[in-house]
Every structure is written in structure tokens, then in C-alpha cells.
């Protein structure tokens, strides 16, 4: 083996003989060499010091023309003008690996005439660029990014993302204030409570009360503003909700405490007002924390399709924007390119990867007269095809539209605590009013009656009720995340606990998503390097499966000549003047070897010099823990259905292997979504687990969408729950955790009602002495918190 040397630009290591040598520098490709020279010429070679030992991806060749970035349509959609009259665009920069990449892009762009600001976020690779449009065109800026080895595509930052960001920031600041005040309040409360037992002078208590008042004010009016606003809208629309209860409770407690402080006549409850606002605010924050940005998802989705295509016009090839293509245009697709518009092949043939539509990794062979669908990727086909639809009506555009629709109309199941709080709040407000009237009639003392009626609300101040859900979900979320289950929204734990149907995608979710060798039959001993070298030349999943299976350190790649890919049959090549062939039974027959095929697995035969040497059988086997986990989920009372784009026979086989009784096969992405829609009509709550682009519509339509951790970006984006460790047992864990959390929520609610049932009558009767009130309020909250912690213990003692 020759020495490995690292490329002077990307730092990837290759053997010396394949490198381009130039003075003391080595390059792995022309792209790296070009970027290296450009950086030295521009005086940007400080990049390499900053890069350190980090490795880069070699720059991909960019044939795309940047001029469409200057089109009026592009400007209208993505470019805005700021108050100084400069243009602004938001881009996602591809290829950023480390902080040095950020430095290089910022440095190179700020060096350009007319660029006045660049800001690249390392965490999400999003960049904001501000420039003077009359000094430099956007296409030149894009060209620069591409020249230094990166690529950029625009995204629309103006919509949900900015809004969601603002909302999140607002919550951060509100919570920062609330947490600060509550923590300080607690230290003062320690002194207050200690004073009950050890004695405290009236003056000191008064000072402490004033300190609490100062701390409670910003919490109530700044941090608690969302609740006050919620109450206002509630009153306007004549509805009573959790916000009404929290806001009235906190405000009345606050006013009551001010009165007490000023008249020095009893115990103030500023702490209770601040704590309820703080805890409920944190609970609310969990809900907005990672609300999916629909716009973001669609940006990623749109990137799945090319912006422009090569069209033949008057015998010349011109690049056209996809929206300008009309039905009947002839489009050229070369190997490696993506199909943007549906059509029918008029010239050429080859294999296509339609996994984004069917979920199946097996390439599909297409020839003249056959339809090709947008979203498919040409593996080795160079074809010309005639469009049968325009871009907006093509399959993939339809999916994007349906996806947008589904995400906007996602069903929301109301949380139990919210449902109850509506009744609870109404009843408490009513009881308080009854108390006021009753006491006034009884004692004719308005001040006393008023104070007692306020005390009813203060006592009922729904700390326990409001805490019931957030604390339980918080514990649930943390247990889940320790097991690699990421719930994007807290409320989804509760929704998932209600679910009664689990829908599973087959390929990549139940199965491993790649065929593996299940049977090997060596007919005649042979040199494995021969087979290995032949397989290395193919991208077919079956070839990869066998290559993985036979791989060992001693295999060395041999030089093969005249390699040929025979569509839908296999591969062949020459070695030492003799023919090597690997493929299915049909290929063997073509080269004159008769074989008998009767297995329902995929078969691969290997022949050398006209002699059959070996036979392999491959099958996309289910994940190791699938059967066991499916059984566990079924025991939780959940019906399991498998949905697949694959044919009936293979669906049946996998379903049988993992013990699923119900399945539907040969479904398109739209069919899967319709299937879920039907289940919704019969009032079922569905959980869908999938991994691929073909599942996104179904994921977006189901109540809870679960993506496998190694699934496609878009599937992860659309889903509510991500299984980071990509195992089936975490799927059953997520059901268990959500059900357990929901049980806890119910228990917490019962506890808080018991507390209220005891204290409210006492308060109405005017029997609440301050000490009992203070202790019972704290105890009720502690009971709820303590009970929620049991999720953890209960779960750990019952490991899955």
C-alpha cells in the first residue's frame, strides 16, 4: 500500500499516487486545487491556520448558473430592502463544517465591494447578507461563495421563523425575570416562615413584605403579561380558560397582599402569586419551545427539487426555470440529476431511484414510453423526456402543497388540565361571589365579606392544578430524552397517551432499509477480491449488501477492464481477458449459464469465465428488536398497522416476520395520508412512524409523527417525536413514557381537587388562618411535584 497524504485544502487523506502534486502541495481534486489558489490570491490563506486539523468536504463542481439569483421573481420572493436602502437576503450555506468555514465566508464576502454586512450562524448555517445592489449583484456574491467551495440557497426568513424566534426570545426574557424574582422571593420567604415559629417583629415582617411586593410586581405585570392578555381575550370572547384562572388568581392575590402590607393586618401572599406565574409560564414555554416552523420545513422540501432544468429549444440546450416549462417541452436529465417535472421518456433508458416516492431503495429501470415522476433521481440514466404536466401540477409540487395544508391544519387534542380548568375557574369565581354575598347578608360588613371572598380565590389559587401538567410532562420529557426520545412539544406526551393506532412504514422503519445477505452458497472456491472489485463498481443496494458481507481487510481492489452496468440485470467486467459477471438469473441466462431460481429473496449469482461460482440471497431484514417491541406496544392496547409502498408479497413476508396482522401495500404517499384521514374519521388517534420522504404526507397528517433518527431531514423536520438512537425499543418506550406521564397528570389533578375540596369550604366559612393557608398551599404544590417524580421511579423499577 502506498503512503497516505492529506490534501492541502480539504485535509482528507488519499494515497500519494492519486493526488495532484504541485510544488510542496498535494490536492485530491481540481476543485480543492482551485479553491486553494483562490484563497492564496485573495490573501485568505489564514483560513488554513484556523482550520487546524479539521477536515472539509472537497468542493463539489458547480455548474449551476447563479444568474437566476438576479431575476426579478427571485428578488420579489427573497430579497428585501432595509431602512438604509441596502438589500438583504437570507441564505442557507452548505458545506460549513467548522468555525474556520464561517470565518472564511464572512471574510471573503465582506471583502467584496458593495457588501456591507455578513452574519453567518454556525449552529444552523443560516446567513444574512446585506449589500448595496447598485455596487454588486447578488449573483456575484453567490459566485464568490461557490468559488471558495461552498454553496448557498435562499430561504424565506420573513415568515414563521422570524415570528417564532421573536416569540421564543420574549419567553426567555419573561422567564429570566420571573425566575430571578421567584428565587429571591424564596429567600425572603424562608425568613417569613421561620418567623412564624421563632417570632418576628411586626416591623421586620413589614419590610420583608415590601421587598416581596417589589419583586412580585415585574413578575405579575411583565412575566405574567401573556396570562393577563389571555384573560382579556377570554373575557372578550366569553370563555373561561386556564389563563383566566391564573391571571385572576395572581392579580387578586397581589391586590389582597398589597392591602395586607399597607394595613399591616395579616399575611401577604406575594410568593404564591409569583410562583404560579413562574411555573405556568415555564409550562407554556415548553409548548412553544420547538413548535415546528412550517416555512422552514417547506424550505427544506423545496430544496429537494431543482430550481431549473435543461430544455431543448430549437435544437439547442437552454436552462429554464421550472416554472417557465410548459407541457410538451423536452427536458434532458443526466445521471445524478433530479427530475423536477412529471413526463414520459422519449429517448434513452436507465435506472432511477424513486425512494422519495415509494420508500423502496431498489432502483427502477425505465425506458422509452415509460412515465417518470418528479422527485425521482437518475442513478445512471441519461435521458430525454417530454413533460406531461407543468411544474405546479407535478407529483412533488402536489406533495408540497398537501404537506403545507396538513401542517397548517394539524389536529390538536385539548389537554386534560385545560379542559378541567374551564369548569374549575367558573366554579371558583362563582363560589367566591356566593361567599361575598352570603357574608355581606350575614355580617353587613363589606370589608370583611370582601376579604373572605378574596381569600377563597387565593386559597383556590390553582398552583396544584396549573402545575399538574407541566411538572409531569417535564419529568416525562427528561426521562424520554435520556433514552434518546425527543419530544418536540410537551403537549405531545399527553396526545400520544390517547393514541390507539400505530402505523408503521416498512422499509427503513421496520426493516433496516438495506438488503443483507441471508444465505451464501459457494459452488466453486474463488478469489473473493474478484467479486469485491466487481461489486465496488456498482451503486446498486444489492451490490453494496454483498460487498459489506464479504468485506475483510485482506481484500484488495483489482484493476478491472470494460466495466458494464446492464440495467435490471447486473454488472459485468473483464479481468485477465476473461469475463466476470454478477447479477440475477436473467443475466446468467444471457451469458449462457442456466440457473434455477425459486427463492422469494433477491438473488445474486457470480460467474467467472462462463462458470457459476457462487449464489447469494439477500433480504431487507427487520430490525433486531422490531418483533419484541411490536409485541410490547400491542400489549399496551394499541392496534398496529403496516403501510408500505412495496408490493404485496414482500409486505406480507415482513409483516409475518415481526408479527403484524394488518397491513396495506402498494400505497403512494397520498394513499398513506388518505388511509390516516379515514382513521381520523372514525375518531381514532393515530401515531405514524416513518423515515423517508415518501412518508412525510402521512407523518404530517397523523396526530403524532415519529421519525427514526437516521431518517431523511424532511421526515425529521415534519415529525413530533424523533427516536435519536434509531431503535424499535425506544418506540415502545415512548408509548410507555407517555402513558405513564398521563396517568401522573390525572393523579396530580385528583390530588389538587382533594386539596381544594378541603380548603375551599374552610375559606368560605372564614376559618382560614394564615399559617394553615401558607402551609397548605405549599404542601399541595409539593405533593404534585413529588408525585410527578414517581414517573421516574416507577419507570426505572419497570425497565423495558
Amino acid at each position, binding site marked *: 500500500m502506498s503512503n497516505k497524504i492529506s490534501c492541502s485544502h480539504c485535509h482528507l487523506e488519499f494515497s500519494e499516487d492519486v493526488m495532484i502534486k504541485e510544488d510542496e502541495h498535494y490536492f485530491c481534486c481540481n476543485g480543492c486545487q482551485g479553491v486553494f489558489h483562490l484563497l492564496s490570491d485573495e490573501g485568505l490563506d489564514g483560513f488554513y491556520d484556523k482550520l487546524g486539523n479539521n477536515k472539509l468536504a472537497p468542493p463539489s463542481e458547480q455548474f449551476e448558473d447563479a444568474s437566476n439569483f438576479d431575476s426579478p421573481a427571485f428578488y420579489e420572493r427573497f430579497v428585501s430592502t432595509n*431602512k438604509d436602502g*441596502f438589500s438583504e437576503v437570507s441564505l442557507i450555506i452548505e458545506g460549513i463544517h467548522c*468555525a474556520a468555514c464561517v470565518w472564511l465566508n464572512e471574510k471573503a464576502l465582506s471583502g467584496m465591494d458593495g457588501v456591507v454586512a455578513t452574519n453567518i450562524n454556525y*449552529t444552523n448555517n443560516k446567513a444574512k447578507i446585506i449589500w448595496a445592489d447598485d455596487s454588486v449583484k447578488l449573483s456575484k456574491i453567490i459566485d464568490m461563495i461557490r468559488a471558495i467551495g461552498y454553496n448557498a440557497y435562499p430561504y424565506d426568513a420573513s415568515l414563521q421563523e422570524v415570528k417564532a*424566534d421573536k416569540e421564543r426570545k420574549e419567553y426567555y426574557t419573561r422567564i429570566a425575570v420571573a425566575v430571578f424574582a421567584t428565587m429571591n422571593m424564596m429567600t425572603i420567604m424562608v425568613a417569613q416562615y421561620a418567623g412564624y415559629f421563632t417570632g418576628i417583629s411586626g416591623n421586620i415582617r413589614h419590610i420583608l413584605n415590601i421587598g416581596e411586593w417589589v419583586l412580585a410586581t415585574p413578575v405579575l405585570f411583565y412575566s405574567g403579561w401573556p396570562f393577563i392578555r389571555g384573560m382579556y381575550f377570554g373575557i372578550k370572547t366569553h370563555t373561561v380558560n386556564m389563563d383566566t384562572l391564573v391571571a385572576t388568581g395572581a392579580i387578586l392575590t397581589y391586590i389582597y397582599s398589597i392591602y395586607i402590607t399597607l394595613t399591616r393586618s395579616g399575611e401577604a401572599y406575594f410568593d404564591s402569586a409569583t410562583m404560579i406565574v413562574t411555573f405556568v409560564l415555564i409550562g407554556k414555554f415548553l409548548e412553544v419551545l420547538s413548535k415546528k416552523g412550517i416555512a422552514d420545513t417547506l424550505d427544506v422540501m423545496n430544496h429537494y427539487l431543482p430550481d431549473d432544468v435543461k430544455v431543448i429549444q430549437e435544437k439547442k440546450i437552454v436552462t429554464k426555470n421550472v416554472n417557465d416549462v410548459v407541457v410538451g417541452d423536452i427536458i434532458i436529465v443526466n445521471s445524478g440529476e433530479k427530475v423536477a417535472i412529471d413526463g414520459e421518456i422519449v429517448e434513452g433508458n436507465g435506472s432511477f431511484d424513486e425512494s422519495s416516492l415509494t420508500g423502496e431503495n431498489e432502483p427502477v429501470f425505465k425506458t422509452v414510453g415509460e412515465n417518470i415522476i418528479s422527485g425521482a433521481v437518475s442513478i445512471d440514466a441519461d435521458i430525454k423526456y417530454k413533460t406531461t404536466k407543468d411544474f405546479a401540477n407535478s407529483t412533488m409540487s402536489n406533495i408540497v402543497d398537501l404537506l403545507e395544508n396538513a401542517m397548517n391544519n394539524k389536529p390538536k387534542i385539548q389537554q386534560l388540565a385545560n379542559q378541567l380548568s374551564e369548569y374549575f375557574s367558573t366554579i371558583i369565581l362563582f363560589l367566591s361571589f356566593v361567599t361575598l354575598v352570603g357574608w355581606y347578608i350575614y355580617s353587613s360588613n363589606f370589608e370583611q365579606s370582601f376579604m373572605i371572598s378574596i381569600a377563597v380565590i387565593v386559597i383556590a389559587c390553582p398552583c396544584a392544578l396549573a402545575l399538574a401538567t407541566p411538572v409531569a410532562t417535564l419529568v416525562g420529557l427528561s426521562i424520554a430524552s435520556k433514552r434518546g426520545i425527543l419530544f418536540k412539544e410537551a403537549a405531545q406526551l399527553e396526545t400520544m397517551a390517547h393514541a390507539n393506532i400505530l402505523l408503521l412504514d416498512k422499509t427503513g422503519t421496520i426493516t433496516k432499509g438495506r438488503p443483507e445477505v441471508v444465505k451464501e452458497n459457494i459452488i466453486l472456491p474463488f478469489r473473493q477480491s474478484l467479486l469485491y472489485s466487481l461489486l465496488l463498481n456498482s451503486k446498486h443496494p444489492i451490490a453494496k449488501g454483498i460487498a459489506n458481507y464479504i468485506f475483510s481487510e485482506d481484500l484488495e481492489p483489482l484493476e478491472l477492464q470494460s466495466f458494464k452496468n446492464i440495467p435490471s440485470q447486473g454488472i459485468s467486467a473483464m479481468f485477465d481477458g476473461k469475463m466476470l459477471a454478477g447479477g440475477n438469473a436473467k443475466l446468467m441466462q444471457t451469458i449462457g449459464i442456466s440457473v434455477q431460481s425459486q427463492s422469494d429473496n433477491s438473488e445474486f449469482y457470480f460467474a467467472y469465465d462462463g462458470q457459476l461460482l457462487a449464489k447469494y440471497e439477500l433480504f431487507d431484514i427487520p430490525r433486531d428488536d422490531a418483533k419484541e417491541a411490536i409485541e410490547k406496544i400491542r400489549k399496551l392496547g394499541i392496534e398496529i398497522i403496516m403501510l408500505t409502498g412495496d408490493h404485496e408479497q414482500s409486505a406480507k413476508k415482513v409483516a409475518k416476520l415481526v408479527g403484524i396482522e394488518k397491513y396495506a401495500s402498494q400505497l403512494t404517499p397520498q394513499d398513506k395520508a388518505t388511509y390516516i384521514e379515514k382513521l381520523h374519521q372514525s375518531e381514532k388517534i393515530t401515531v405514524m412512524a416513518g423515515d423517508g420522504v415518501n412518508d412525510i404526507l402521512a407523518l404530517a397528517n397523523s396526530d403524532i409523527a415519529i421519525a427514526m433518527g437516521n431518517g431523511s431531514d424532511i421526515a425529521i423536520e415534519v415529525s413530533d417525536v424523533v427516536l435519536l438512537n434509531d431503535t424499535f425499543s425506544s418506540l415502545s418506550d415512548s408509548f410507555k413514557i407517555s402513558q405513564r406521564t398521563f396517568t401522573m397528570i390525572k393523579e396530580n389533578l385528583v390530588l389538587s381537587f382533594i386539596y381544594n375540596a378541603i380548603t375551599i369550604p374552610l375559606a368560605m366559612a372564614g376559618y382560614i388562618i394564615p399559617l394553615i393557608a401558607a402551609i397548605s398551599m405549599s404542601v399541595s404544590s409539593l405533593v404534585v411535584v413529588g408525585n410527578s417524580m414517581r414517573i421516574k421511579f416507577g419507570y426505572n423499577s419497570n425497565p423495558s
Partner: protein
Amino acid sequence: MSDWVIGMMLGVSIFLGSIAVVALVWAIKKGQFDDSEHFLNAVKFDGEEDLNDAANLERKKEALKKKDYRPE
């Protein structure tokens, strides 16, 4: 300990604490926590040259603003 000492201590500690909170809130609003890597990278890379670049960029922006008429 007299009452006013307690009052003063309470007042001063709340005041100092609130300065910290105000600073935090200001930093959040200015977007200083948007990019979690930003701080560390700045420590690693920002040198004299980068400060000059930033100043030049400001100058360039001003120059472009003055040179052309830009409608609001």
C-alpha cells in the same frame, strides 16, 4: 440589628440583582445568545485584523450611504 439595616440590605441586593437581570434581558434581545458557538469562536479567532475588517466594513457602509441617494 436595626430595622433599617435589614431594609437597606434587602433593597441593595434586589437592586444589584436586577441590574444583572436587565443586562441578561438586554443581551437576549440583542441576539447575543442566538449562536451558541459565537462567543467561543470570537475568543479563538478575533484578532487585530478582524477588528480592522469590522471597522472597514462600517466605513464602507457609511460611504455607500453618503454616496448614493437611498429612498427610505
